[in-house]
């Protein structure tokens, strides 16, 4: 099966089907991995952009992951060909090269262990997906985002009957 990641799927028409910044994903992620309550050690973080836009961001599981190529000690590896990039804690020396190069800022250094910490899909069934009360986080395959954006872009090119440009044109 294709590479997987935790994706954010909102429906802007339904008030309940959007991220409500309850940060339960952060809490449960930190609890699952470190057995403590500390959202800063979570591997998924909710970004508040204001005006009701809150987006949870975590590892995108890139095809040729810059973090893997730049890691000097090879601590970031994929177990299977299309698995998630995982951190090998004992090899990682905490040099934060991956933090500098990650395009989405999804890799951070764990404040306590000092090693890289990123999403590892909780071994297959991510807790943030299970505990998200709004059910907006889903386990999807990594390149789905582009198809969705292609569809919205295509829709924006088509004029609807009343002559009003596609809703996404704005």
């Amino acid at each position, binding site marked *: 099966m294709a590479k997987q990641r935790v994706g954010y799927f909102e429906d802007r028409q339904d008030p309940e089907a959007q991220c409500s910044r309850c940060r339960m994903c952060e809490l449960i992620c930190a609890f699952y991995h470190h057995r403590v309550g500390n959202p800063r050690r979570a591997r998924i973080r909710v970004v508040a952009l204001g005006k009701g836009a809150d*987006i949870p*961001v975590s590892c995108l599981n890139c095809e040729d992951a810059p973090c893997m190529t730049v890691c000097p000690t090879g601590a970031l590896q994929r177990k299977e060909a299309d698995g998630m990039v995982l951190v090998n804690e004992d090899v990682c*020396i905490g*040099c934060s090269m991956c933090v500098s190069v990650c*395009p989405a800022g999804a890799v951070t*250094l764990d*404040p306590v262990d000092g090693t890289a910490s990123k999403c590892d899909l909780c071994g297959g069934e991510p807790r943030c997906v299970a505990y998200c009360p709004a059910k907006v986080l889903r386990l999807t395959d990594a390149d789905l985002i582009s198809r969705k954006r292609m569809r919205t872009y295509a829709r924006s090119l088509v004029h609807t009957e009343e002559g009003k440009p596609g809703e996404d044109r704005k």
Partner: protein
Amino acid sequence: MKMTKTLVFRPERCLMCLSCVLACELKAVGMEDPRDLDPNSTRKAPRRLSMALAGGTPWPQRCRHCAQAPCEEACISGSIVRDEASSTVRHSPETCVGCGTCRLVCPFNAIFRDESGDCMTKCNLCPDDVVPRCVCACQTGALTLSSGDRQAQEKKRSYAREMIGGRGNG
């Protein structure tokens, strides 16, 4: 290694003007202004920070103050110690015997032999200055003192803004 200060580099702002390199060298020889240099002296300054071009983008070659620093483990005289409070790897020239094993194990080639002394030298993140000299010298804000965590958050924020098409809900 909590919310502490480390050097954060933003390549898109760097002009490769190398003022940071010069500032670091001047600090090494204990000078404020380059014009005070004695022209006849052939003393070389230890090169603790240098700029390299990695595939066209500037990249500072310096000590990254790793959490589990290989140089700390390799040091036979115990003169390289990681200082948790300021999350920097400090090297004390007095006790250093100059064996050079740290230079061998450092993945970033950030430790050099100091010509004048018979010991090694590396970036100690200017312990006695509020702001390291290289950050002071960088005019464009490419090299700043902030925490890796905040750099990751900024990238998450720009990724989130890009993902919702910048509309931020109107």
